[in-house]
């Protein structure tokens, strides 16, 4: 029997498949399509202190093997998430869930993360440090090891649950950012967030996205994500959640060999709403094909 279980910061997942934040809403849409309790867990839409409508539209552009988005963290704000979304979520999802947290200042991160940390169903806090730091000149927290250290250390103090830091790939040296997060006592690293890109509308001769640039996701990212997972695995000892273009069970195995303990699946959910279910169903057969008995054992196998 193929054993697909993995342990993520002390919590055992039935399988390593985790829908990525921003591509799975709060789970209900998908709960109509299949039993989402089959998932390892899922990471819900990025939550901020205040409610956000996000950016103007168009927010989506097609790319070769991927898409750009500039949704801009649309969410009802942490208070509404706690009062409205989590109670509804509880009805369709019985497992611990991953709370994805964003912010534009260290205080916002701390505020939002510490509120979500107290929610029973929240199993992990996933701190998305790719947002521009409004007090730091707009440069994203995740682009410098120093800023990353500061925000992670501040959140760490207020958060008891496992703290996973989600890194931006738009950096020269992702391993040093990961190492900074580890030294600020993060419990895990998740990567990669989207790669900054843009498209231009040839008819209007203007950028296609209202926000000019957007984040690239989808299979186009896969080789970049694998390289970064591999690099970060050599730089830290804490577990890694790998993501970026993962679309099938073979990609899951590849990301785990590169160093991931679990994986997140983003864009694939949008084009195939059954993507995560299909991947979970294909895992045992794929494991057999590559002679894997316990999936957890292959993490980092390519090093």
């Amino acid at each position: 029997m193929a054993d697909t279980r993995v342990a993520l910061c002390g919590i055992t997942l039935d399988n390593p498949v985790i829908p990525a934040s921003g591509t799975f809403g709060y789970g209900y849409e998908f709960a109509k399509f299949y039993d989402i309790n089959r998932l390892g867990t899922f990471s819900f839409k990025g939550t901020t202190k205040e409610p956000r409508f996000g950016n103007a539209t168009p927010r989506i552009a097609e790319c070769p093997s991927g898409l750009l988005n500039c949704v801009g963290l649309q969410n009802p704000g942490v208070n509404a998430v706690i009062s409205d979304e989590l109670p509804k979520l509880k009805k369709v999802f019985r497992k611990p869930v991953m709370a994805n947290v964003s912010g534009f200042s260290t205080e916002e991160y701390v505020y939002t993360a510490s509120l979500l940390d107290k929610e029973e169903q929240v199993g992990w806090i996933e701190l998305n440090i790719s947002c521009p730091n409004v007090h730091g000149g707009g440069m994203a927290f995740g682009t410098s090891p120093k800023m990353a250290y500061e925000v992670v250390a501040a959140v760490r103090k207020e958060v008891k649950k496992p703290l996973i830091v989600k890194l931006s790939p738009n950096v020269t040296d992702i391993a040093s950012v990961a190492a900074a997060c580890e030294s600020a006592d993060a419990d895990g690293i998740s990567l990669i967030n989207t790669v900054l890109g843009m498209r231009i509308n040839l008819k209007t001769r203007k950028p296609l996205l209202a926000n000019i640039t957007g984040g690239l996701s989808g299979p186009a990212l896969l080789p970049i994500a694998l390289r970064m997972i591999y690099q970060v695995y050599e730089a830290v000892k804490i577990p890694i959640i790998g993501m970026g273009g993962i679309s099938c069970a073979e990609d899951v195995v590849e990301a785990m060999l590169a160093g991931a303990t679990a994986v997140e699946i983003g864009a694939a959910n949008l084009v195939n709403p059954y993507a995560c279910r299909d991947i979970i169903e294909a895992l045992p057969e794929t494991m057999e094909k590559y002679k894997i008995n316990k999936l957890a054992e292959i993490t980092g196998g390519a090093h």
Partner: protein
Amino acid sequence: MEERIFTVKSNKLIARDVYEIKLSGDISGMQRPGQFVNIKLDGFYLRRPISVCDISADSLTLIYKTVGNGTEYMSTLQEGKKLDLLTMLGNGYDISKSGSSPLLIGGGCGVPPLYLLAKTLVAEGKSVTIITGFNTKSEMFYKNEFKSLGIRTLVATADGSYGAKGFVTDAMVKCGDFSYTYACGPEPMLKAVYYASKASGQYSFEERMGCGFGACMGCSCKTLYGSKRICKDGPVLEKEEIIWPTQE
């Protein structure tokens, strides 16, 4: 939403750059006018959303304009080709609000969903009028199909090459009063109709989509009832809730 495989039955040019494609497959549950399907095309990452134009016993009619690489590719699909569709997407039009004499207004590629709507309203015994607007005669389609439903059918062309010269709103003034408005077309047209009509109504919007079923927040718009997703809470909005973007 359901994922279903359809087979191309026919795919033909019916006006300049406009194609009618008929697909056979399981159409159960797809009768609500104003809903759309989201089509996976080989070689393209995102699906392409197209409104349901008509439904028969076992087939689905869509009408699409070639505006980019995806629709260009669609126009090359041959009979027998299998297509993966997400079906029954969007809220669709609420026909219970139509009153006795609804006016339907469609512009360009906004016309197709009004066909199933008109057919459904006629079946409910409503006295339906439709105005369709095009840039020019060669882009016009489905005039006869609408006429065959036995409804009053007006056409406006911007250059006057067919029917009334001008926009759909120019044709509206000649229509007299009506109980309700159903509109679909480019945003400037919807806006003009909004200001030109006294009656209440429902307007169908387009937005670039990531998923088409409510997961990604790619298609959000602001309404008086809060932010809504065009793909899931729309594409049809009530006239009363619409907030027009201040800048184009």
